[in-house]
């Protein structure tokens, strides 16, 4: 039997990374359509759902959390997490702020993932044999 080294954390981080990429796609589309008349900017809303999933973390029901994450991943992959904001035309400055924010979040997630890998490596290498 293979030991699950990644666990729920890696699955959650993967979902969050995918969401960041989807959000980037939405922002890029908003910027590209900044001058399209009648265009409604796209938003990605899923953090509240991820938060709900996060509250299940540490509980005994690991399988439920996993299935919740899988559902979220499907929603992001298919683009169903994209919503049209109904607040008028694209504001380029706000989009640029979201762009910077999103890239930073993405990097932070990767950093966290890297640290986790480092801890695992440490555990593997410190057996003393």
């Amino acid at each position, binding site marked *: 039997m293979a030991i699950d080294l990644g666990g729920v954390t890696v699955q959650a981080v993967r979902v969050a*990374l*995918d969401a*960041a*990429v*989807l959000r*980037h*796609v*939405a*922002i*890029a*589309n908003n*910027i*590209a*359509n*900044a*001058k*399209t*008349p009648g*265009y409604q900017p*796209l938003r990605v809303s899923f953090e509240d759902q991820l938060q709900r999933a996060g509250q299940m973390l540490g509980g005994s029901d690991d399988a439920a959390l996993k299935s919740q994450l899988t559902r979220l991943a499907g929603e*992001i*992959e*298919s*683009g*169903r997490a*994209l919503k049209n904001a109904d607040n008028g035309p694209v504001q*380029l400055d706000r*989009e*640029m702020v979201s*762009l*910077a924010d*999103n*890239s930073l979040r*993405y*990097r932070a997630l*990767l950093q966290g*993932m*890297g640290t986790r*890998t*480092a801890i695992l*490596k440490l555990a593997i290498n410190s057996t003393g044999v």
Partner: protein
Amino acid sequence: MDYTSAFAISASGMDVEKSRLETIALNLANVNSTAATDGTLYQPVRLLSGEKSTGSFDVMLNRFAPAQLPAGVEVRDVAPLSDGPRLVHEPGHPAADEAGFVAYPNVNPVSEMLLLIETTRSYEANVRALNAAKTMALAALEIGRAR
């Protein structure tokens, strides 16, 4: 999720803004054009852009992704403005009519320059978005690298 769609979207934005720039340049270049020998006068043009819809072929290829993923922007049309000619009284001019008026295209340099600035900024924003996607993709390559 992959990055190719993000790159394609930003590229489509840059493409459209570049085409818009070309129409502005065309308008400005023809600001002093007189009528051709057949009598037609240059008409200032505007580029019309709109949101690109995901092609049906893409949907067919990618059955798991319904046609909801954004696909960027596209050029819809290059349409002439309906302004009449700008008449200048130059009686000695070879292109003047009987009353001494020469017809020039009604290009408004001020609005063209404003549109030019706006277009440049839009283009820059698209380049920023493209660079952000590139940085993110490069950062993702660092997953699992020994530190």
